[in-house]
């Protein structure tokens, strides 16, 4: 599964995207966040519990309880500031 990061999260994690093999016990976006935090200090900082960030599953905005079964791309990003 592809995991992507945007804006300042990309710089904090250190990569724009990475391929991961999803562990069997990681079933939701929230569980993925917890698992990713253990990968590096950059991940831990970007995905910290108090940080304001959102997620998308297969390019649609997703809350943390959304299931990952069948998903090919998950993204994390700060609040949108466009327009």
């Amino acid at each position, binding site marked *: 599964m592809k995991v*992507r990061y*945007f*804006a*300042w999260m990309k710089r904090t994690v250190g990569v724009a995207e990475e391929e991961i093999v999803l562990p069997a016990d990681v079933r939701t976006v929230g569980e993925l966040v917890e698992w990713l935090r253990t990968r590096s200090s950059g991940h831990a900082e970007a995905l910290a519990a108090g940080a*304001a960030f959102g997620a*998308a599953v297969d*390019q*649609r*905005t997703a809350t943390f309880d959304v299931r990952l079964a069948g998903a090919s791309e998950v*993204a994390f*990003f*700060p*609040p*949108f*500031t*466009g*327009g």
Partner: protein
Amino acid sequence: MTVRVQEADFDVGAELERLTNGNRRIGGLVVFVGLVREMHLRDGLHRERIEALTLEHYPGMTEKALEDIETEARRRWTLEATLIVHRHGRLEAGDRIVLVAVGSPHRDAAFEACEFLVDWLKTKAPFWKLEETPVGEKWVEAHEGDDAAAARWAKK
């Protein structure tokens, strides 16, 4: 219904001509053009001018989000024509960022739908602004007013 994300500038007159051309059911066309405003950032004792900004976006998700927003507008109002063009990449003060145009038989619907689209764009479309200041780059933080502006449409 057209949604485009592009690095290049757009020609407002040509876009509107293409959008309304031949449609004699449009009585009112409401258009929003967002521009990069020259801004100043107060940082300690210094007042730093923002020279330019870079708009990062999430290709693929952006188009989906813009299409969802447009579909929602067409569900709420009787619209004859809608257009969203959003730029990404580096932009300087005075540059155009976004074009939203809505044509409807009636002006009220055109005004409401255009404002709805602009408010939603600010909060639902995956764009992030990175400002260039004389002291370095700075990511723009989310603006509470934008969430409030988008939230008023949830009451409908």
